[in-house]
Structure formats: C-alpha cells, structure tokens
C-alpha cells in the first residue's frame, strides 16, 4: 500500500487552496521556508515535514482565516491513515 509523504500532503493542500484562491496559492507556498516548489506537482520538503506543513497551513490561515485551515484538513483527511505519524502536524489532525 502506498505511503504518503509530507510533500504529497503539501501538494494536495496547495492544489485544494488553488481551487479556491487561484494561482495565489502557489505564491503563498513559495514563501514557506523549508519547502521548495519546483513545479505544480513537484514540491520538496527535505526535513521536518511536520513543521513545514504546519507553517504552510498557518500561512493560509493568517491570510484567509480559520476556514482555510478547515480546507487544508479536509484536503488531506483521506490521506492521513497512510502518512507516518511524525509527518502529521497537530494542526491537521
């Protein structure tokens, strides 16, 4: 069975945000430290997956409020059972 990584979760979150706010979602992601956006399907998080994901969610939340946090949680909910626990930040649980 496929195991999802923090990068997979980040891609899913950004895509979901893009459906709501458009390309701005990628601009926001590019400003998250610890994460490199190479293309629309290629995002790398070399270390501290959980921390980087939390800061991505907080970036959106800071700009668009708690509703955007819920969108992030909804986006990855079905993936969580297949992600290492150490890669899941508290904010997404």
């Amino acid at each position: 069975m496929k195991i999802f990584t923090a990068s997979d979760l980040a891609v899913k979150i950004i895509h979901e945000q893009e459906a709501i706010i458009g390309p701005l979602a990628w601009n926001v992601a590019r400003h998250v430290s610890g994460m490199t956006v190479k293309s629309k399907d290629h995002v790398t998080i070399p270390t501290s997956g959980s921390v980087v994901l939390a800061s991505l969610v907080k970036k959106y939340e800071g700009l668009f409020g708690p509703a955007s946090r819920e969108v992030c949680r909804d986006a990855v909910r079905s993936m969580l059972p297949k992600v290492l626990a150490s890669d899941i930040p508290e904010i997404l649980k």
Partner: protein
Amino acid sequence: MAISSDSISTNDVNRELYIRNAELAVRNKTLLLLHVMSGVMARALETKEMVHDIVHTLRQEFSYPFVAVALVDEKKKYLEWKSFSSAEKKGIKSVRIEQLEPISLLGRNNICAKSLRTNRRHVSRNFANIFEGIDVETGKQFSIDTQLKSALIFPLTLGKESVGILAVGLDRSAITLSKHERETFQSLLGLMTIALQKAETFQHLQNTAKQLRVANHHLQELDGVKTEFLSIASHQLRTPLSVLKGYIGMLNSTMLGPLAVKQKDVLMRMDSGTEQLIMLVNHLLDVSRIESNRLSVRLEPIDLRGVLDGLVKFLEGKAKEKNVALLYTVPTMALMVNLDLEKVKEVFMNLLDNALKYTDEGNVTVTVRVEESNVRVEVRDTGHGLTHEDIANLFQKFVTGSASKNVRTTTGLGLYVVKKLVEAMHGTVAAESEGKEKGSRFTVLFPLILSEKCDENNQ
C-alpha cells in the same frame, strides 16, 4: 472620508470571500464528479454494467477501501451484491464479489438489511455486519489490508420503495466525511435511483422483446402448419371435385340420356357451384404454394397473343350469356415474353372472369399494346367500379371489393394470386377506377423479349 472603528476591515472581507469561494470550490468539485457519474449512467443501459461503473468511479475518486452495491432480487427476499470494488494489496484482492452471499431482507444482524428496512443511513464498524459468506479471518485480513475503520450504508429508493443499498468503506471514522464527500453522496443517491429506474425499464423492454420474438416464432410455426394443412386439404378436395365436374358435363351433354327442363336448370346450378368450388380450391392451392415459398415458375418464350386469343374465345360464350360485349384489340406482330404458360393463363383468366362477373351491362375491353420494351395488357370494364379503399386493399388476401355484394362467386383470393403470379414472372399489375359504378381498369405489364413494329389491328 473617515472610516469608523467598527467598519469591516479588508482582512474580514478577504476571509468572507474565501469562505464563499471555498463553498463554490466544493460545489464545483462535486458537480464535476456528478457530471462524470451521470455520463457513466447515461452510457450504461444494463443494471450490472451501470452499477459496476459507478462503484469503480466512486472508489477511485475518494480512494475508499471498498465500495459496493446490492439490489433487492425479483422475489424481494434477498439483497444481491451487483458490484464490489476494493483496494488491492500487491494486485491481490482478499475479498471477491463471488464470495459475497445474498443477504436475507429479514436478517436482524445485517446492517444492510436494516438500512433497507428502515430506509435510513447506517454506520458500521464491523465488517461481519455488512457482508455475509465471508469468514471471520478473511474479514479481519481484508480490514487490515485496506485499513478499513468504518462503513456507511445508504439505502437506494425508487419512490417509496427501497430497491438496494450503497455500501462505502472508510479508512477513518464516518464522522470525518468532508463537505465534498457529503455533497457527493447526497446528489449521487438521487442520480443512482433515476439510473436504476432507467436500467429497470431497459430490462423490461429486453424481456418484452424476447417474449415477442418467441411469440413471433410460434406464430410463424403455426402459419407454416396452416399452409401445410391448406395444401393437403385442397389436394384432397380437388380430385372428387374434378370427378363431380366430369359427371355433370356428361349429364349436360345428354350422353347419359335426355334431361327435363327442370333437371337442366338444377344441373346448371350444380355446375356453377362446382366451378366455384374448383376455383376456390385452386386459389387455396396457389396461396399455400406462395406462402410456403413453393411457387415455382418455368419461364420460356411465349407469344402472349396466342394465350389471350384463346382466353378471349373461351369467354365469348359467357359474355354472350350476360349480354356483355367482349372487345379485343391486339397488334398483329408476335409478342414474345418469358412466361410460364399455365400461370399466365391463370392470371388473365382471373382478370377477364372478374371483369365479366362485375359487369352487368356495357362491355369488357381487352387492349394489348407495345410500350417501349414492355407489352401492356389492359382489361377495362363498364361494371360496378372500385372505391379508393377497394384499390388500396385489392391485392391482399381474403379482401373483396365493395362491389362483391353484387356477385355470388368470390373468394377474395383471386387478385392476391394474380399479383403474386405476375410478380413471379417479372411483371406488374395495377388497378384503377374513377369510382363506384364507373367501371374499372386492370393493367398488366410484362417485359418483351422480341418485338416487331406493326400497326394495331382490331380482331
């Protein structure tokens, strides 16, 4: 202009717009999925195929551990699994649809039967409550392989009647359904019931078509038996009738002694009755040959004039008896046509006999002409005529024209036989009339094989 401290900030507007956009995004995603689903449902006609496509699409979209559909059987006693799609572990499925047994609708412990009975959504955390026929170990292994945590059972209803269930396995708690999932299920169930109704109608149509095919085959067999019966019966009748006709002829010719006037009158009636019976039997035999595709024609070059000359001469006496003039116009040249001698005699005998039968006064005219590469024979009378309705049905079996009440001897088969015989000899026949009591005209066309240009001569 100053902005008051309680006015809405840009940030608030931004957040409000985000919420609206998020709702629209969910709706958009749901509509997109439903669009795909409705496409699947529109394409598939049979229940099994349609259900399979829905189950497969749904499981792929949300990566569910399993999605399955069961429908109530015809006797309304069991829920039968129509489709089951599950996640695979290294390409191997631990549970296959063949393993799933039908669920009794009265089953107390089964969550699917319960959902159907109560017509409400149910949640189960126990695989054994959903499926039957799966042993505990297999169920456990399946749950581990697919990380199954819970399952949602939705009833499918057509009007007020529950027709089946949709079972969806989740790798999390059922309360964690996203808005997209909730909206999808809400709309999908409605779509599925419409699609099931369509599939049911299609199934009914298929069954009816099958029944009609069987009935049609049966009717064809019966028709064959009837034709066979007609053929046998007609042959059995013709021999004694020929004997009868012969003896009547002998009596009429006074070979067996002189006859009194009253006896002659009775004998004439007997002769007419016998002739009518022979005609009927002959027509029935023709019909049985036509309908059993046994009508064979032996075409050979024949001079049509010779045939018509003989027939006109033969019927002159009958015309004289009725006080009807029988006029005949024919070219002097030979009119060579590929015909079956016996069949062509039968055709013109029928047409001329009819013309005389339906004409009480005036004349019957037979005109033969060459028209391009055809020979055209026209039998025109000044008799009772035909209505438009008569003409439309004239060449059908057992159909008699409106003028048939004026004659005693009619079978309703003569013109049907004429048409079939003419067509078998590559000709055509048509009827015309200006209306009731305005006479009628029958035209027969045959392709010529040899013609000489000659003036027409009255004979």
